[in-house]
């Protein structure tokens, strides 16, 4: 029974059911305005963009599988990269229709339909070998964008190998199409679902565990933890999720395409924007920053958080370009330094913020695995 293991990993100081405080804060902050701002200016455009990118991925992959060639593969690979970038701006939104479509990541094992990594190569090949097109039995690491990454990209960029594999196998073509159709369907359902759900989201403006503010903050924190632990900590050997604390360079996101660093930068932008309440154009609205500034002691935490965002960004942009997996092997120190700065942010986001905002947070607990 592994139900608390993710909590151990995440180090959630206020684990299952623990609340910062029970009292409703005696503040005049307009949470409805904040939620409305998030719903319309940040969440809706992100979901819409992902739905468009997922649709494009499906179309380009359909073209590639119908007619495998260098040109059609290039298009599919480019569409995959775009979809992965777009996803970075959606990964923190796992409530309402998005929870159903994207899955939950505050459980161990995580249940992420879109971005589980590393891809399960043996599983994918088994499903291909057995002509699977239904995804009922397909686990999270054998589906989603990282599974598609394995199918469409080659570590040594040998596209001919990829093209030949698809030319030779109907099953491979059909399985890949099923994966992209699944992403497209989920992205579309989340986008459409949000339009009808967002009114409920905005109206649920209290501070209880089931309030929208609590969900927004909780999923933001869970997403931050995922960024810290899964995208950096495990690959660079700073988080124990294997048999030793050795680097696990093959556990980076989008290992085969090799654009992990680009994704880290986008994911960081997305998290920073979310905290500020900024849209993709950088225009600040009513976000968690303003919410924090409205409470006693909040301004100090805001200043500390901004300083830490700056420190993280500086270290992030000191990581040399190229494949993150290669950088960790040949020159790991900049990645370790980056991880250290990300780690320092944990306290401000996970402890100070919910405590200052008197937000009641509970975490999922299943029966285990």
């Amino acid at each position, binding site marked *: *029974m*592994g*139900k608390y*293991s*993710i909590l*151990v*990993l995440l180090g959630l100081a206020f*684990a*299952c*059911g*623990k609340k910062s405080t029970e009292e409703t804060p005696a503040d005049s902050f307009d949470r409805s305005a904040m939620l409305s701002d998030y719903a319309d200016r940040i969440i809706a455009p992100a979901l819409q963009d992902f739905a468009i990118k997922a649709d494009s991925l499906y179309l380009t992959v359909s073209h590639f599988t119908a007619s495998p060639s260098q040109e059609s593969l290039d298009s599919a690979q480019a569409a995959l990269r775009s979809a992965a970038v777009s996803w970075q701006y959606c990964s923190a939104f796992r409530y309402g229709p998005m929870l159903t479509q994207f899955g939950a990541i505050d459980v*161990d*094992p*995580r249940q992420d339909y879109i971005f*589980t990594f590393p891809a*399960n190569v*043996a*599983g994918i090949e*088994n*499903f291909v070998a057995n002509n699977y097109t239904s995804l*009922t*039995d*397909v*686990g*999270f*690491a*054998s589906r989603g964008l990282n599974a598609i990454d394995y199918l469409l990209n080659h570590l040594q960029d040998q596209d001919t190998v990829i093209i030949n594999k698809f030319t030779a196998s109907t099953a491979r073509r059909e399985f890949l199409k099923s994966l992209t159709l699944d992403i497209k369907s989920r992205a579309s359902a989340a986008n459409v679902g949000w339009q009808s759900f967002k009114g409920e989201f905005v109206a649920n403006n209290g501070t209880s*565990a089931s309030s929208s503010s609590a969900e927004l903050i909780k999923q933001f924190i869970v997403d931050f933890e995922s960024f810290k*632990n899964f995208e950096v900590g*495990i690959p660079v050997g700073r*988080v*124990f*999720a*294997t*048999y*030793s604390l050795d680097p696990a360079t093959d556990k980076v996101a989008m290992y085969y395409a090799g654009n992990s660093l680009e994704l880290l930068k986008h994911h960081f932008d997305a998290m920073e924007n979310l905290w500020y309440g900024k849209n993709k154009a950088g225009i600040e609205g009513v976000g968690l920053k303003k919410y924090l500034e409205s409470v006693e002691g909040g301004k100090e935490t805001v200043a500390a958080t901004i300083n830490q965002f700056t420190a993280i960004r500086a270290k992030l942009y000191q990581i040399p370009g190229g494949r993150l997996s290669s950088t960790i092997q040949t020159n790991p120190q900049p990645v370790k330094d980056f991880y250290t700065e990300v780690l320092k942010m944990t306290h401000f986001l996970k402890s100070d913020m919910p405590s200052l905002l008197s937000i009641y947070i*509970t975490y999922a*607990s*299943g*029966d*285990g*695995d």
Partner: protein
Amino acid sequence: MAMFTELINITKQGNTVGKFVDSTVLRNMFYNTGSPFANATLNTSTVKLSEAVDPSTHALLLSYFQQLSEASKSQTKGGKDTAGVIISEEATSGKLYDTKGYAVYELIEKNLMGGFQVYNIGTVHLSDANLNSTDNTARLKNWDMAFGYLGVPRNYTATTPSTPAFPLAYWASYLKTNDATLGGNIKNIMTAFVSGRKAIEANNNTEVKANARIIKEELDRTGAGMAMTYLFRARKAMLNQYKGRRNGALSEGRGFLDAMKFNPSRKITDAEWNEVISYLGTNNWDTSLADVEKALDKLGLVYGFDSNVTTSKFNK
């Protein structure tokens, strides 16, 4: 329950690579000797877990303690014929497996969920002998003790969250997994506990027994449902080529099948139970997809549960 929890927590330590679990400590906890508990009040208590566990399973549990301890000596990754921790695929944590691919701590936990919790509820406190007593004070005490062994909050529902103040563990946790599929078995059990107590106060013995039967039968269905769910998970892990999760799910499935044996109102006959077990075999590394599907079909047939991969709501 506190002793049970401390013991299980020690068994789980083996899931950390290189962490030795001393069978003597587990044995001392079982017999409450040598002050083995972190909670000092347990050490001075006259209560012994061994005296509350079905005597017929003592030898098995002691052998499991030994088996777990042996496996925990491993310093290598687990594999076929090799004891050791296997990190669960897609997860950040793993489990310690013995040479035959059993997560022994799961077998200990589930056997205690059966031999300690279900045994005390079904065989001890809600036994016909106790329920036929004319001493209502004693009957009420037995009734309340049975509820205590279930380990759930008094206002427990299918949506009750686990909290640090009252973490939901063992049956309290697993009852929720298939609650809807089983037609609201939490509500059925909780209602039966309330109704049965009222029936004792009203001296309506027919009602008392009817409610006791509901509690036992619902627990039996819960155990069978969890065995189904874990066998489905094992099947899915096999298709995904996940050896760790396959063995983990097979261990838990076997554990729930073991736990079902302690229920005096179990629907499954010994012959049927043996048939299910025979499909699963005695070495998780050798259990095939077809074996698991046969076990699912048989168990589904006995309990009237859907074993179809596509339609079964136990497949989660």
